[in-house]
C-alpha cells in the first residue's frame, strides 16, 4: 500500500515536471537579458532577470493587437460553440430521432478534413462577403472546428444526468425549460466547463486557418508564426510565453467549475 502510494506520488511529480519544466525554461528565457541567453553553461536559476526582451516583444508592431484579437476570437468561439453545441448535445442525449447515428458520424467527419482544405474555400467566401481579414471570420472557422467536439462531449455530459431527474422536476411543476435550467444544467456544468476550456485552447492554438483568413487582423499565434521566424531567439521565447500564459489563466479560472462543486469531488 505504501509502496503503491509512493509510486503514485513519483508519477505525479514526473508528470508535473514534464509539463512544468518547459514552462519554467520559457518563462526564464523570456525574462532574461539577451546576453545571458548566449552564456554557457545556461543559468537555470533566475539570477539575471530583465524585462527588456518581453517589453520589446510586447512593444513590437501587431503583438498587442494580435493578443486582443486572439482573446476576442477565443472567447467568441467559446460562446458561439456553446450556444450552438449545448442544445445540439442535449438533443442527441435525450431524443431518439431518425438519422441520429449518421449525424454523429458526420460531425466527426468535419474534423477529418485538413484545416487548409477548409480554409481556402472559406477565404474565397469571406472575401466575397467582406468578412475576410476580420476576427469574425476566424471565430466562425474556429467555431466550426470546435463544434463536433462540443456537441459530442456535451451530449455525453447530458447522458450522465439521469432522465429521471428531469422527469422529477417536471412532475413537481417545472416547465421543460425550467427543469433544464434548474436541474439539468447545474449538474452538467462541470462537463460544460471542460468543453469551454477545450474550445478556448483549440482556438487559441489554431494557426493555419487564422493565417489564411487574415492579413492585418492576425491572432497572436498567426502573428507570431509569420513574424518570429525572422526574429532573434530571445523574442521567440517571449512570444512562446505570451502564447502560453492566457491559456493557463483560462484553464485555472474554469478549473473552479470542475472540482468541488457540491461539497464533493466530482468525477
Amino acid at each position: 500500500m505504501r509502496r503503491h502510494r509512493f509510486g503514485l506520488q513519483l508519477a505525479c511529480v514526473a508528470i508535473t515536471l514534464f509539463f512544468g519544466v518547459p514552462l519554467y525554461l520559457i518563462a526564464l528565457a523570456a525574462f532574461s537579458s539577451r546576453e545571458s541567453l548566449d552564456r554557457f553553461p545556461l543559468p537555470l536559476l533566475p539570477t539575471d532577470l530583465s524585462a527588456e526582451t518581453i517589453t520589446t516583444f510586447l512593444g513590437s508592431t501587431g503583438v498587442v493587437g494580435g493578443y486582443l484579437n486572439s482573446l476576442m476570437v477565443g472567447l467568441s468561439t467559446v460562446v458561439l460553440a456553446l450556444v450552438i453545441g449545448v442544445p445540439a448535445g442535449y438533443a442527441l442525449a435525450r431524443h431518439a430521432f431518425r438519422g441520429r447515428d449518421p449525424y454523429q458520424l458526420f460531425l466527426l467527419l468535419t474534423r477529418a478534413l485538413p484545416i487548409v482544405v477548409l480554409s481556402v474555400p472559406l477565404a474565397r467566401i469571406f472575401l466575397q462577403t467582406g468578412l475576410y481579414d476580420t476576427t469574425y471570420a476566424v471565430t466562425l472557422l474556429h467555431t466550426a472546428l470546435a463544434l463536433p467536439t462540443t456537441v459530442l462531449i456535451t451530449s455525453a455530459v447530458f447522458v450522465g444526468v439521469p432522465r429521471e431527474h428531469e422527469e422529477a422536476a417536471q412532475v413537481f411543476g417545472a416547465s421543460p425549460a425550467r427543469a433544464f435550467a434548474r436541474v439539468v444544467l447545474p449538474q452538467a456544468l462541470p462537463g460544460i466547463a471542460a468543453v469551454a476550456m477545450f474550445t478556448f485552447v483549440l482556438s487559441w492554438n489554431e494557426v493555419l486557418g487564422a493565417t489564411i483568413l487574415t492579413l492585418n487582423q492576425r491572432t497572436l499565434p498567426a502573428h507570431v508564426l509569420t513574424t518570429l521566424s525572422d526574429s532573434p531567439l530571445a523574442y521567440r521565447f517571449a512570444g512562446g510565453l505570451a502564447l502560453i500564459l492566457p491559456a493557463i489563466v483560462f484553464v485555472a479560472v474554469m478549473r473552479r467549475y470542475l472540482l468541488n462543486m457540491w461539497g464533493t469531488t466530482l468525477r
Partner: protein
Amino acid sequence: MKITISDLVKTYPGQARRATDDVSLEIADGEFLVLVGPSGCGKTTLLRMVAGLETPDSGTIHIGDRDVTGVAARHRGISMVFQSYAIFPHMKVRDNIGFGLAMRKVDPAEIRRRVDQAAELLQLTEVLDRHPAQLSGGQRQRVAVARAVVVDSGVLLMDEPLSNLDALLRLQFRAELKKIVREIGTTTLYVTHDQAEAMSLGDRVAVMRDGRIAQLGPPLEVYDAPSDQFVGGFLGSPPMNFVPGPALGHASDVLIGVRAEKVAVGTERADDARPATVEVVEPTGASMLLTVLIDGHRLKVSAPPTFTATPEQQIWLRFDPTSLRFYDPETGLALLR
C-alpha cells in the same frame, strides 16, 4: 382524488407487443392501490402514463373529474417517488424537499414551515442543510418521499420506491411508509415487483401480466383465491402449489391449487390423509418448509417449526377441501367452485 383509467393502450416504438393492453382501472379517493407483476408486465408504463411521463396511444385518464390524458405532467397536480429517488445532487436536502413548493411559487416562509414539518415526519431534520451526497441510501429515500408528500397533491405515485434499499431497511421503511400514507390520506398508486410488498401495503392489489390486469382485489382475497394459475404462482412465498386433480383424488380435467400453509402435515397414517415422500427439509425459523413428492408431483408444504422430518421419510398430508382451488389445466383460469 379519484383516478379513473379507461382502456389505456400503449405500444413503445419499435415493439410489436403492447406495453399496456386496454387497461381499465378505478382508484377510489384515498385508496392505496398496488400494481404488482414481473418485469415487463406494463405496471411502470401504466404509472408513467398516469404521471404524464408517457403518452398513451389510446384511452383516457381522469384525475378527479378532470380528463388529464393530454395534460402535461406539471399541470396534473400529482407527486411522485422515483425508483432511483431522483434527488437533485446540486441542491441541499431542504431545497430538494421544497422544490415542488418553490415551483408552485409558494411563499418562502410557508415553504420553510412545510419543509420542516415534512422533515420531521420523515426524521430528516438533522440533515436538512446537507447535500444528498452526504446522506445514506435510506436517508435519500426519505428525502424522495418527503419531497413527494410535502406538496400535498391529490395523487401520490410511487415507482418501486423501496427496491434500492437493502432487505432489512426495506422491511422497516415499508411499515413506516404505510403509516405515513395512511396519515396523509392521499390516493396512492404504487408499483412494485415484490409480491410481499404488494400484499403488505395495498388496500387493493392489481396483479399485472403481459400488459393486462390479471386480477384486482384486496390482498388477502387475491392471495386466497387467485383468478388464474399465474397469479397464484406469482403471489405468496412459497408460491401456490399446482397439481393435477387425480393426484389428490379429484377429476382428471382439473388442476388443483393449494397454499403451502393450508396443508396439514402428520407422521401418522390417517384415512383422510394422502401419503407423500419428503424430498427437502428447510427450517425457516417460523415454520418448517418441506418439499414433498405426492404421486410424482412436487409440492411445497409448511409444517410447524417443531415438526421433524428427514429426506426420504414418508409423511401424511391432509387437504382441507375448502382451501383447494380449481383451475382449468388448458387455460390456467379458475373454475367456478
